[in-house]
């Protein structure tokens, strides 16, 4: 199914030939919003205004190249002609991909090269029925999707517990019915016992009846409460699990763009508000609605005319509820956002607490916090205040109904048309309606809170992974370790490629050193091997199998990483070493540590291998942590090893120890190493020099050094210069 609007027929008819590519741009040439059609045929590049009149035309033979020049929030398609560059069309960021492709296509036409194939991915996608943008990777439009869907999806979580929930509802119904008995007994007491001054045993029986009903009610309430707690806790557990699973499934790219501390709050508070709605909410709704119906039935039975008075305020309350509903939802969201901002702030400053302290910026951080805090307080007051104002208003309005009954019923009693007991019962039942009334506003509150939470939770769950697992993964078993890059291009933001057209063949067991300036694409290079991201163009193959068709679990089993920033999990050193192989024996752990040059220092620690390393392993030095993480890679026994600046932040002696450990580690494995100090890479079989995302030189240290004016030589010279300066300083 194509969701792309097609070129209108009148324009098509006026083209010189079949359009190879067409797209509707959203900016006119003066940079204002406007719809124009852009079309390319094999002879010309054209632009048409909204009325189907041509507004620009350029012959393919006139131009030498076309470029999509990205701006901020938009861009320009330029053509280079003999007379200088020419603006073809302008567009907003939504169309960057489409015009990026257009530029390639026009260039290929001009140079008479093979034409690139167009894919749906290039176009922004809009819902065919409502015209709103569609998220990547989905076909369903969130707007056209029915509103109740979120609600139903949320309620699905309650499904496994439907038996218990049904029991709770039944109990609630019974309590409701029983609750209605006492006022009726009171009526009997007044009309049949107290007023006729009946001295028989009737009084005792009525009182006993009252006692019995309250006993049964308490028992049932207790049971119902317990069921509620049980179901609620289970439900919340399920929800938290699902959210966490969804988070773990997401690709690194998702987390790159977000501050991670926000998710802590999401997992906990969002699942709590959903739980509250589903257990308390659902059970209450069913119980209380029943109660309302029952009360009205009894009241109508007692005196239907008086009951009508009680109904007078109802339309008003319904109206108010309906108008308040969206407002409350928005304010909840607003309040949530201020908590969110506060959390992000705290997460940020605590993660960077060293920097904060080092620069003595506690005051600034505190004032930043209090600003955000004030905002939260303000929003809290706004939502809670709205909420606190609503219930008394409702009570007051409902109270008007009571007053009417008092007045009209009272005069009936005086006239002798109505028994006193009936009036008292009516008033009592009306009082009971306040419960459900409170529920109406409480329910509005819960439901809107829960729906907002559910929206955010499902948003995480619905975010497609950027690196989806193959549907039918290719089993790879134990690999040899050949790695091939074929015309690989990748950019964290599309059309800003960080790696461009990279070709490289690496034999199993070879050690490759990646060198280049910072920002040259070294880290991206290894991120692609780990498949943290998928290539935009071209492919990477391991032993001839495309990475994309290998399941990620299989792939990760074969790849080991030692990163610059070593992260040790909360746990013992032994647990950290055995992270990727939880069933490792103590000997295996020690062997790995020995190879990593870590065994000695670990054993010397008072707690040995059982030393707890806290969050981020604070009790170990940088070099020690690094060696633990090398041991972690060794025990994993990967066929492909990735070393990212493994020795960047340690002193020379530690570096030597780590170097030694690494040289033992790389034996027989395909290794990709990035190092800041070029001397670290002297063991590499080949060095790959990257510059601005392209491979510029490949060869051994000696070969590359021999190239006069070569990129590698320049790097080495620059570093020598630097160490000289350092030597002087030292």
């Amino acid at each position, binding site marked *: 199914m194509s969701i792309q609007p097609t070129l209108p027929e009148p324009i098509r008819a006026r083209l010189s030939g079949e359009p190879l590519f067409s797209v509707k741009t959203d*900016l006119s*040439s003066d*940079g*204002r*919003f*406007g719809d124009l059609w852009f079309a390319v045929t094999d002879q010309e590049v054209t632009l048409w205004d909204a009325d189907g009149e041509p507004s620009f035309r350029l012959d393919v033979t006139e131009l030498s190249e076309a470029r999509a*020049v990205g*701006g*901020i*929030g*938009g861009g*320009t398609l*330029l*053509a280079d*002609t003999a*007379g*200088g*560059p*020419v*603006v073809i069309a*302008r567009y*907003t*960021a*939504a169309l*960057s991909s489409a015009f990026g492709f257009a530029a390639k296509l026009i260039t290929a036409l001009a140079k008479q090269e093979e034409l690139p194939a167009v894919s749906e991915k290039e176009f*922004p996608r809009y819902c065919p029925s409502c015209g*709103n*943008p569609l*998220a990547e990777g989905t076909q369903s439009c*969130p*707007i056209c*999707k029915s*509103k109740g*869907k*979120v609600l139903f999806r949320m309620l699905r979580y309650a499904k496994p517990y439907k038996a218990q929930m049904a029991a709770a509802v039944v109990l609630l119904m019974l309590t409701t019915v029983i609750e209605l008995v006492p006022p009726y007994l009171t009526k009997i007491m007044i009309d049949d016992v107290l007023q006729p001054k009946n001295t028989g045993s009737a009084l005792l029986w009525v009182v006993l009846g009252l006692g019995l009903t309250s006993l049964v009610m308490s028992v049932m309430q207790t049971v119902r409460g317990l069921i509620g707690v049980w179901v609620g806790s289970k439900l919340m557990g399920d929800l938290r699990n699902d959210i966490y699973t969804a988070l773990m499934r997401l690709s690194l790219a998702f987390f790159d763009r*977000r501050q991670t501390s926000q998710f802590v709050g999401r997992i906990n508070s969002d699942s709590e508000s959903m739980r509250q709605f589903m257990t308390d909410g659902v059970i209450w709704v069913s119980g209380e609605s029943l109660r309302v119906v029952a009360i009205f039935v009894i009241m109508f039975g007692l005196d239907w005319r008086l009951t009508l008075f009680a109904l007078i305020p109802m339309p008003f309350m319904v109206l108010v509820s309906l108008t308040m509903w*969206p*407002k409350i*939802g*928005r*304010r909840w*969201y*607003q309040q*949530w*956002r201020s908590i*969110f*901002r506060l959390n992000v702030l705290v997460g940020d400053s605590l993660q960077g607490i060293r920097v904060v302290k080092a620069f003595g910026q506690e005051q600034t951080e505190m004032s930043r916090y209090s600003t955000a805090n004030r905002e939260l307080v303000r929003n809290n007051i706004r939502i809670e205040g709205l909420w606190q104002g609503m219930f008394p208003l409702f009570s007051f309005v409902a109270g008007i109904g009571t007053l009417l009954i008092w007045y009209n019923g009272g005069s009936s009693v005086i006239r002798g048309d109505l028994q006193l007991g009936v009036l008292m019962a009516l008033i009592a039942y009306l009082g009971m309606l306040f419960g459900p009334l409170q529920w109406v506003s409480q329910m509005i509150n819960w439901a809107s809170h829960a729906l907002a939470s559910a*929206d*955010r939770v*499902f*948003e995480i769950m619905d975010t497609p992974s950027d690196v989806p697992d193959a549907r039918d993964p290719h089993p790879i078993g134990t690999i040899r370790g050949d790695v091939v890059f074929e015309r690989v291009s990748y950019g964290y933001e599309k059309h800003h490629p960080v790696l461009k057209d990279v070709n490289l063949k690496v034999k199993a067991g070879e050690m490759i050193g990646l060198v280049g300036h910072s920002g040259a694409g070294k880290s991206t290079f290894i991120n692609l091997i780990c498949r943290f991201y998928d290539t935009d163009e071209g492919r990477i193959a391991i032993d001839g199998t495309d990475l994309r068709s290998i399941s990620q679990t299989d792939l990760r089993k074969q790849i080991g990483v030692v990163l610059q920033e070593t992260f040790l999990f909360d746990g013992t050193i032994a647990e950290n070493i055995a992270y990727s192989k939880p069933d490792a024996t103590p000997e295996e752990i020690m062997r790995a540590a020995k190879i990593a040059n870590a065994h000695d220092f670990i054993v010397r620690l008072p707690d040995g291998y059982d030393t707890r390393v806290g969050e981020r392993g604070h009790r170990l030095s940088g070099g020690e942590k690094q060696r633990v993480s090398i041991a972690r890679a060794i025990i994993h026994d990967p066929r492909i090893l990735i070393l990212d600046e493994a020795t960047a932040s340690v002193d020379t002696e530690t570096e030597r120890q780590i170097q030694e450990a690494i040289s033992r580690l790389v034996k027989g494995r395909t290794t990709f190493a990035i190092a800041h100090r070029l001397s670290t890479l002297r063991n590499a079989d080949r060095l790959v020099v990257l510059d601005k995302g392209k491979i510029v030189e490949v060869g051994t240290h000696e070969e590359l050094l021999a190239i006069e004016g070569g990129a590698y030589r320049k790097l080495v010279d620059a570093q020598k210069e630097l160490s000289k300066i350092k030597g002087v300083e030292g």
Partner: protein
Amino acid sequence: MSGDLYDIRIFEPKDVMFSRGTGGVFQGVLDGKPYPELVVYRAFPFLYTTQYLSIRDAKGEELGIVRDLRELDEESAKELEQELQFRYFLPRVTRVDSVKQKSDLWIWELQTTLGPTRIAMRNLHEFMQFPGGNRIILTDINGKRCEIADWQALDSRSRQQLTDVV
């Protein structure tokens, strides 16, 4: 290594002249040298929209900085301003017609300095930015951006639309 390389080059207003080529491309003469294609970057896109403008050649190499657009001659200033508008596509919102949440999208109907438009956001906490003051940057799912320079200064109806989202 000359010291110049590590210094910021600030253009004197008399050394620069900007114009628009016949093909509609921004060009100019800098220090007497003509460039058929120039690109302009804002160094402080939020704080100083018409000051500290980095002028670069088609390859992206910085040629120098224009300290303030207003110091330039009329024609150059006009073209530079126009180019900024093209490159930094950030229409300023003049009126907020409506902000509605439809299922899980927030739809904004806006009037801007560059014509009416509509923005769709997945949520507010990631797609609305508050760079300071009463300024708001709105980002569309597809990356389109609009700016509200001062939301307090909008007309009362617009402000009302914003009350529960700001």
